[in-house]
């Protein structure tokens, strides 16, 4: 499979004044670190992103000034912690344009959010022979929870296949919808191919067929403007750590009626209204789904990250990353024509470039690049079935974020030349 050619009519996004990634980079303390005596060239942002000073300051401010449990204390620092924690919900709601802040449930990450939906909505809804439609390009997080669910309930999984260019086969999707699935769940942006899927169109078709739709936004929120209302989603999940926030933060957004009808997932403090020895009543949404002491520090960093990205402007972030992707694809093709590149053209992709160096295993590529301080990901990127589909054991992946620059890509090209030199032809 080779990279597809640019589709007619799909152009580059426009985002106003371009971002200055060098100025942004200066706000990320880790870039003052050296690796093997060289400055860090971090090209694994799709795995997890680096954190700006603003996020670290927010987290440290909590620890140093008002570290207290939320929703509990009748004292100054407890009230401040609660206010900060709930203010994050409002920031996140704005970030994805949720109509109601109480529709935002905090989770550890996208994985927990998907499991929450599978355990609550899923176990209550999916019955024998009910189908769930996924795609061949899903991350394990949006595949394995559904496998467990259909195993328990004796339901069925169906998969939208991909074309050789890494696009979803919408013609097959239409056929699968005739099975009248209860749920269609797919990623907005592929973490391996970078493909930006036509979410709105797919949601409309699913709804017309009577299915609800869960969108895995883990690779979308860091890179493209997201509006859950415009997308028409029923469930939308994502992680904080890929969008400049601390690990341990993430969210499930769902429509109020859905959340209210869902039974709780985990049980314990905070998610209850009243507890007796043999029965309990649940708290209102979203707290019904937030059992136990939440990670307020991570949440506060999550809010700071969302505010940071909104201040940059997600349109400009998208434009910046589109420029990088286009530059990366062009440069790699021109300078290292022997590489195999995977996925669709720049206009249809998020901040990911996957490739292989002929006759060199991705692990060896990554290891050699590391000696130059360059961090890329090598492996299956938690998309084993996609790699099976492409008949590949593994791929190399370079991925970007707001702090990435063309210099990073130039460094990658130099590093790959060295790989080719060491391994010969």
């Amino acid at each position, binding site marked *: 499979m080779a990279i597809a050619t640019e589709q007619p009519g799909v152009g580059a996004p426009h985002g106003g004044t371009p971002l200055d990634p060098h100025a942004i980079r200066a706000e990320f303390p880790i870039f003052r670190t050296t690796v093997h005596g060289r400055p860090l060239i971090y090209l694994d942002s799709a795995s997890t992103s680096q954190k700006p000073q603003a996020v670290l300051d927010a987290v440290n401010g909590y620890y140093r000034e008002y570290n207290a449990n939320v929703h509990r204390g009748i004292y100054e620092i407890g009230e401040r912690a609660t206010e900060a924690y709930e203010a994050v919900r409002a920031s996140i709601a704005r970030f994805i344009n949720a109509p109601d802040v109480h529709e935002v449930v905090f989770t550890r990450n996208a994985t927990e959010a998907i499991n929450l939906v599978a355990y609550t909505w899923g176990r209550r809804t999916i019955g024998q022979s009910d189908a769930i439609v996924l795609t061949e390009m899903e991350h394990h997080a949006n595949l394995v929870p559904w496998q467990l669910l259909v195993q328990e309930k004796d339901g069925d999984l169906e998969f939208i296949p991909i074309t050789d260019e890494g696009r979803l086969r919408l013609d097959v999707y239409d056929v699968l919808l005739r099975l009248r699935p209860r749920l269609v769940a797919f990623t907005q942006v592929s973490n391996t191919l970078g493909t930006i899927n036509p979410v709105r169109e797919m949601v409309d078709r699913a709804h017309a067929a009577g299915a609800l739709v869960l969108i895995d936004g883990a690779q979308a929120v860091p890179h493209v403007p997201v509006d859950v209302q415009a997308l028409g989603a029923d469930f939308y999940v994502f992680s904080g750590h890929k969008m400049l926030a601390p690990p341990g933060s993430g969210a499930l957004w769902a429509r109020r009626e859905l959340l209210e009808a869902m039974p709780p997932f985990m049980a314990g403090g905070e998610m209850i209204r009243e507890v007796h020895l043999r029965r309990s009543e649940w708290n209102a949404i979203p707290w019904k789904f937030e059992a136990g002491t939440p990670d307020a520090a991570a949440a506060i960093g999550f809010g700071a990250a969302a505010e940071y990205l909104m201040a940059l402007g997600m349109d400009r972030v998208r434009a910046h990353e589109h420029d990088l992707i286009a530059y990366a694809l062009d440069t790699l093709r021109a300078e290292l024509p022997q590489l195999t590149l995977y996925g669709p053209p720049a206009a249809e992709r998020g901040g990911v470039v996957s490739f292989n160096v002929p006759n*060199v*295993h*991705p*692990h*060896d590529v990554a*290891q*050699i690049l590391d*000696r130059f301080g360059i961090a890329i990901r090598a*492996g*299956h990127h938690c998309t*084993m079935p996609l*790699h099976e589909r492409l008949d*590949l*054991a*593994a791929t190399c992946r370079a991925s970007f974020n707001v702090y990435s620059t063309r210099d990073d890509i130039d460094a990658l090209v130099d590093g790959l030349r*060295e790989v080719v030199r*060491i*391994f*010969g032809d």
Partner: protein
Amino acid sequence: MDDLYRDYILEHYRRPHNFGVLEQPTATYEGANPLCGDRITMMLGIRDGVVAEVGFTGRGCAISQASASLLTDEIKGKPVDAVAKLTTQDLLDLLGIEISPARLKCALLSLDTLEHALAESGVAPARGAAS
């Protein structure tokens, strides 16, 4: 430039020794490292308590393939008892390069696979990986 990719390692990777299928193996085992996509099939021909023949096939990174090449050289013609005593350290010494924790699985796949093949032949390996 890189200790890990010494010439002899790359040489074993490009032209692995003992690569190929045995006609009449007494034991065969396919080991895999699904996280990496590395696979090695190890074939032994044990006669009179000696590893008379050995072959392997597979695909994977330079470290895993060079390791299999070096390991099969090492065991060919040796008594199975001695082969069964090989330790992780013995294999790392054979490789002669510094292996980071993330690559240890690559390096050890050949030894793990060998131990499973030995276990199939009724020989209990010292490390117990096959148990």
